[in-house]
């Protein structure tokens, strides 16, 4: 079957049956032909035929280098090519990889504060240092004792506001997010937000975030463009159209002609022109769809497909494939809408998200592309990016509802979810179900099953968490329970 399909595919591209069969018997398919060196192909077919083949398929002709490998294993031309590529790549990478310096250099004032900090052995985070430096700007004479005094005052305030060790921040975070959560309306209006795109909001969205769904119910992207095109409406429109996934049924009527047992496609001129499509591109993308078995012919303004196995059921199947043939665009991006921001810049919003493919486009500003699909961000850009997206999305959802939750609670939750290098849900399948302590897991859900399993494999519990110690009847490891007292003789006491 596979052989027959490949042969048919080649024939459809205008290659004679004899040549096609010879090639397929030689172990080629369309993909392999693209990487096959010319002089290897000629082992299976004549030089004239091979030349015609490459011309029809639009493949650049190149010769295999007569290397040692090529001579040893000429049966695997693609493998040889791949090995050669790998070798070339290995040679190219001679320059040492330098890690870009992403951290901004401290300003003069910041450096002054930092130096003083070192002297006083005071530690403050950079955000506070730069804040302090900002306030110092404009002060005419900055003296060292002044900075010193200032530093100690700031440090005092900072220490006052920092959280004590052993504070049960997890519970505080859980309550701080949970309580506003109860105030959220169960069902929120959908068609709110960006230009006629519906975005899930409110409680459903929050649940989605916390559950770490692979695909949000309304995936959405915000695509900024490179500065040179961002104000050019026509260009932005063109890009938006090229992003939007267009299937055949969007631009053409497809019907089954039962009398003649064939499928007739009537392209809609108006719809085609709005999508920048021509009759030929339509035809070409149909040609590329390999699942369509049958002959394709152009009859006037229509395309007709006749199937070799003409049962009604088969015809119906083919029609489904034909209707859903991808003509243009990026997978999973169902709609693209342009919106002008206050800055006059045009931005593309999409329904559906495909970060990886969008990032490949040269026209977009890769640094400002945004998607609300957190798991996708994790897969494409990594956990740190995903953690930031998690924080941003959770915060946005709460803020849209008019609820203010301190970011640090959300940050803690995001940290927990992204701690292991990928995004884990909160709950059974995520962090609660994968706690290291067996007693903690048993306390969470399906107690007997967990205990039985642990008994069989002989699990050990170090009693380091809270739930375990409650079960065992010991002081818990938070708050006063975590403090270890020690005798301090008079000589050792100086506080």
């Amino acid at each position: 079957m596979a052989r027959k399909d490949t042969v048919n595919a080649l024939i459809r591209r205008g290659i004679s049956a004899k040549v096609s069969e010879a090639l397929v018997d030689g172990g080629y398919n369309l993909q392999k032909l693209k990487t096959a060196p010319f002089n290897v192909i000629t082992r299976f077919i004549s030089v004239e035929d091979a030349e015609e083949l490459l011309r029809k398929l639009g493949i650049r002709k190149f010769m295999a280098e007569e290397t040692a490998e090529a001579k040893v294993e000429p049966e695997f031309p693609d493998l040889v090519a791949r090995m050669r590529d790998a070798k070339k790549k290995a040679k190219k990478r001679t320059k040492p990889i330098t890690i870009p310096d992403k951290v901004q250099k401290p300003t003069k004032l910041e450096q002054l504060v930092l130096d003083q900090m070192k002297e006083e052995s005071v530690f403050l985070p950079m955000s506070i240092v730069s804040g302090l430096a900002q306030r110092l700007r404009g002060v005419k004479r900055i003296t060292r004792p002044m900075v010193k005094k200032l530093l100690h005052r700031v440090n005092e305030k900072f220490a006052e506001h920092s959280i004590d060790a052993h504070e049960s921040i997890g519970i505080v975070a859980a309550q701080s997010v949970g309580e506003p959560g109860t105030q959220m309306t169960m069902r929120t209006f959908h068609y709110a937000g960006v230009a006629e795109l519906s975005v899930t909001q409110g409680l459903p969205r929050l649940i989605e975030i916390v559950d770490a769904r692979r695909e949000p119910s309304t995936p959405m992207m915000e695509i900024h463009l490179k500065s040179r095109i961002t104000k050019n409406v026509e260009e932005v429109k063109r890009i938006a159209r090229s992003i939007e996934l267009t299937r055949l049924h969007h631009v053409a009527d497809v019907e089954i002609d039962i009398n003649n047992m064939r499928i007739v496609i009537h392209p809609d001129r108006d719809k085609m022109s709005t999508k920048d499509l021509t009759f030929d591109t339509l035809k070409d993308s149909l040609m590329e769809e390999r699942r369509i078995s049958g002959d394709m012919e152009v009859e006037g303004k229509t395309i007709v497909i006749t199937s070799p196995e003409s049962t009604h059921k088969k015809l119906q199947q083919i029609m489904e494939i034909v209707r859903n043939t991808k003509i243009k665009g990026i997978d999973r991006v169902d709609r693209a809408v342009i919106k002008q921001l206050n800055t006059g810049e045009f931005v593309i919003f999409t329904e559906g998200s495909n970060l990886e493919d969008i990032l490949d486009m040269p026209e977009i500003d890769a640094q400002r592309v945004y998607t609300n699909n957190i798991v996708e961000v994790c897969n494409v850009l990594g956990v740190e990016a995903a953690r930031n997206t998690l924080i941003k999305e959770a915060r946005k959802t709460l803020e849209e509802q008019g609820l203010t939750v301190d970011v640090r609670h959300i940050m803690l939750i995001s940290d927990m979810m992204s701690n292991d290098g990928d995004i884990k849900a909160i709950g059974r399948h995520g962090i609660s179900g994968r706690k290291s302590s067996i007693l903690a897991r048993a306390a969470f859900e399906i107690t007997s099953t967990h205990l039985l399993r642990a008994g069989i494999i002989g699990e050990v519990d170090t009693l380091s968490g809270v739930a375990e110690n409650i079960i065992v009847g010991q002081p818990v490891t938070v708050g006063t329970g975590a403090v270890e007292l020690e005798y301090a003789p008079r000589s050792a006491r100086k506080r």
Partner: protein
Amino acid sequence: MKYTRFEKARIIGARALQISMGAPVLVDASDKIIDPVEIATTEYDEKVIPITVHRRTGAA
């Protein structure tokens, strides 16, 4: 060393227990103050309690 509020509570608590069980009081408390917690708190304020905390670094 500054104690956190949890440490303070534990130290005063432990000291109050000792006092309630008859340990010699380390401050000059008037006879009117009977509550061991109150005595322990004044002791804490005067920094005479022979108890400190052992702080472990890293994960418990």
